[in-house]
């Protein structure tokens, strides 16, 4: 209870994350500017009759095409002599009503349907999905226009209809969120805690859904406003209702006479919709974290090696390697600091450590496939005496697959889901040795046989989802050894597999290692696998290699305290539960006849 209680007291940055969303939003200049722009516009609309002396439909023959700044007509008047400022302000109100109706109805229909469709069984889901697919099939704008005889041109009725047509968007967002949340174990836990469905929906599900819905609302409001403007421009609806679309239409007709009549409403409409979109974007950044950054495949070339005086000899030498990531506050966060080991030809090395010890990062650095955010800050990786850090990707490509190969942890996610196993292996074969596709395809079958797959032809023709996890791992091993590498880096190659399959995969690696005379670096957290497989072992803790030695030595007499702690934590093979179950009606038995009397923390007995 020492190591895992410390972090709770040292988490300063998380306090900042708890500050309410509104306050975080207030710190985002884009959100503040767009929100206040919208606010000013809406308030101006509400004060329309105070600001402007004319009514929106008041036409004066004297004012026809009055210019900007004419007395009583600060923005001029249109071709019918109506005050442009008054029209503009009243158009704002029309747009606000439009946005409220369109967005409101989309939410009113989409949110409950999404909650129901996502939370309840597959039949309800299929029914709601079908219904909303039907709505999506309607060509939206066309429907609004052809139903003019029904809506009688009232923009509110039209927008209500449009709201329904927008509902599938909301439905999809909500349903996907709910489906994601529903499978979270905390919802199951709430159910086991005795919470009724409606409380789970309100407390756990709606909570997760509200962010994306708020974001979507900003965009839906923008869409509603521009669609209404488009329809009014076409002349759908009552021409008595002031709207941007109608103003733009009349301004367009009068473009040569008075361009401002066209420009002013266009500008305001543009500002409103753009503000809504930008506000939505700011909202998204605040609620969902910063937008995803692109992921260039090729990592920037790591810094070249820092010269070290004494040079260790070996097939693969890693010396004083350090890797850091930029943390959100801009400071570098070193995840590997001083990792190092040496592997001789044909040797097996276990790289052991707990999660976060940097063992996988070290492996990626050797292969040159660290994610783009990572930086190798110092150290050296040498293969047969040649420095790999600093090599351009083009050169590394010749080494990968041919000299150093890699077997990943999770078999399924490491295969391309949409190509057959055979096609993927053929690609790997051709990458290490250029040859015609047909020839590569022929090489696939013996390769699959080599990794112990009983019917290579069936497997070669299968897609990854059609084969088992153990089979997929064999396929990945086949891909790795296709180029007869000298070093194989296997990163937790059996962790995702069942125990019995795990043993088979380990046997296969044993066998291949001998046949191909490969050196193997086995990255693992499992000391049993190290005992089974490795000649030597390197123990990592918090980015550092704390101990290296032969496997037997390290297991018998660990030098570092951390290694000793890890070895002591292993649940050994002979200690069983020593206390008998207490009986409700009888005093607890001290010793059951079947139990050995060792305490749980007992020593290994070997």
């Amino acid at each position: 209870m020492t190591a895992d209680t410390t972090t709770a007291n040292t988490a300063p940055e998380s306090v900042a994350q708890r500050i309410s969303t509104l306050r975080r939003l207030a710190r985002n200049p884009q959100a503040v500017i767009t929100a206040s722009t919208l606010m000013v516009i809406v308030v101006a609309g509400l004060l329309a009759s105070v600001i402007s002396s004319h009514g929106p439909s008041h036409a004066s023959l004297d004012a026809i095409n009055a210019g900007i700044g004419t007395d009583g007509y600060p923005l001029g008047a249109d071709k019918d002599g109506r005050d442009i400022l008054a029209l503009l302000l009243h158009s704002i109100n029309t747009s606000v009503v439009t946005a409220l109706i369109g967005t409101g109805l989309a939410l009113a229909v989409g949110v409950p349907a999404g909650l129901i469709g996502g939370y309840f069984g597959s039949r309800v889901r299929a029914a709601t999905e079908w219904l909303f697919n039907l709505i999506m099939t309607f060509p939206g704008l066309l429907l609004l226009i052809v139903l003019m005889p029904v809506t009688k041109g009232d923009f509110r009725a039209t927008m209500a209809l449009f709201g329904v047509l927008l509902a599938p968007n909301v439905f999809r967002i909500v349903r996907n969120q709910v489906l994601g949340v529903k499978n979270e174990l905390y919802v199951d836990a709430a159910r086991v805690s005795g919470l009724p469905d409606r409380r789970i929906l309100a407390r756990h599900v709606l909570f997760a859904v509200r962010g994306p819905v708020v974001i979507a609302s900003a965009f839906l409001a923008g869409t509603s406003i521009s669609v209404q403007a488009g329809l009014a421009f076409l002349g759908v609806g009552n021409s008595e209702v002031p709207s941007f679309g109608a103003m733009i239409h009349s301004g367009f007709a009068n473009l040569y006479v008075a361009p401002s009549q066209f420009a002013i409403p266009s500008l305001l409409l543009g500002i409103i919709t753009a503000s809504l979109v930008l506000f939505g974007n700011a909202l998204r950044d605040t609620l969902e974290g910063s937008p995803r950054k692109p992921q260039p495949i090729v990592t920037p070339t790591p810094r070249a090696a820092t010269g070290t005086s004494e040079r260790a000899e070996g097939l693969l030498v890693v010396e004083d390697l350090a890797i850091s990531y930029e943390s959100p506050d801009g400071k570098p966060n070193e995840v590997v600091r001083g990792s190092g080991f040496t592997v001789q030809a044909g040797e097996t090395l276990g790289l052991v450590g707990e999660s976060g010890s940097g063992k996988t990062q070290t492996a990626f650095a050797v292969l040159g496939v660290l994610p783009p955010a990572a930086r190798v800050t110092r150290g050296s990786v040498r293969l047969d005496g040649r420095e790999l850090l600093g090599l351009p990707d083009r050169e590394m490509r010749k080494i990968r697959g041919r000299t150093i190969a890699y077997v990943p942890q999770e078999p399924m996610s490491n295969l391309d889901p949409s190509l057959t196993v055979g096609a993927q292996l053929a690609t790997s074969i051709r990458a290490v040795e250029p040859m015609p596709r047909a020839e590569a395809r022929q090489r696939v079958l013996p390769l699959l046989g080599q990794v112990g797959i009983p019917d290579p032809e069936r497997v070669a023709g299968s897609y990854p989802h059609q084969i088992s996890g153990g089979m997929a791992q064999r396929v990945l091993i086949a891909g790795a050894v296709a180029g007869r590498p000298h070093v194989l880096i296997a990163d937790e190659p059996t962790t995702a597999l069942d125990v019995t399959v795990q043993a088979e995969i380990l046997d296969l690696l044993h066998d291949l290692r001998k046949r191909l005379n490969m050196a193997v670096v086995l990255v693992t957290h499992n000391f049993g696998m190290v005992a089974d497989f490795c000649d030597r072992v390197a123990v990592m803790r918090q980015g550092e290699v704390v101990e290296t030695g032969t496997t037997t030595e390290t297991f018998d007499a660990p030098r570092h305290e951390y290694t000793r702690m890890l070895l002591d934590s292993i649940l050994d093979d002979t200690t069983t539960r020593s206390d008998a179950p207490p009986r409700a009606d009888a005093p607890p038995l001290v010793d059951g006849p079947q139990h050995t009397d060792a305490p749980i923390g007992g020593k290994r007995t070997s």
Partner: protein
Amino acid sequence: MISYALRRLAAGLVLALLVSVITFWLLSYSFESVVASLLGSGATDAEVQARMTDMGMDRPVLAQYADWLGAALTGDLGDSYFTNEPVIGALTDRLGVTLSVVVTALLITAVVSVLLGVTAATRGGGADRAAQGISLVGYLVPSLLLAIGLVYVFAIKLKWLPATGFTPLSENPGKWAQSIVIPVAALMIAGIATLTAQVRGAMIDELRKDYVRTLRTRGLSPRRIVLRHVLRNAAGPALTVLSLEFLTMLGGSLVIENVFALPGFGSFAFNASLQGDIPVIMGVMILAVLMVIVVNLAVDLMNGWLNPKARVR
């Protein structure tokens, strides 16, 4: 694969049927006012009722729909109330105009978005900022304003292109191209904005997956990994967005055809609904829905080809 295609097609036809029922049912509420406007403002209530009986509009809506459906299945969508022109012929004439604009816009949108999205996701930096900028402009400016802006600059100020009108492809390919440049541009910018963002996002998600790293450790070049593996897996969601874009463009063509005075499907539909020309309205709806279904089917089939898991279901 064939049974998959047939199942999707059957589902699409059921959908078309439902859309036509709902549209007919909604329209049935306006039959009376349509007849009134057909007869002119001087017609009395009794005259309107008589005319409705004449046209069979006093019968249950379902029966009227059954008549319409029966005729429609034989390829007869009735005659326009106002021009007495057969609806099917009038529609197919105008469809050519609309499709040449919409399909051209859709194809360019697809190509440009994939190029922009892939470059943005794989290169990052300046390419990414440029793609994001284009996306943002497309989102920010309503396409109505964009269309008018383009007409103003290229047709009115620079006089490079005709502002309005349409030349059929068969008549003069050069003039055809000129006549659709601005409409196509106006339609596709919003589409490019949406689809580029989609392609970029899907590519970024896909590039983060484990198999990309594993392929790199096999010595494959980044170009091969992107073209052969990543793009294929990112294409599924992008295709779905493309099919939705088709719907949006079909709607957008209503506005665009009006602005540019193109004699298309959209302006025809618009005039028909102003007048309440029921047979034309029904014809427009059913044709539009059939087009949507065909596009969705094509997208589903492509998805099935790209994604082996989708094929089974």
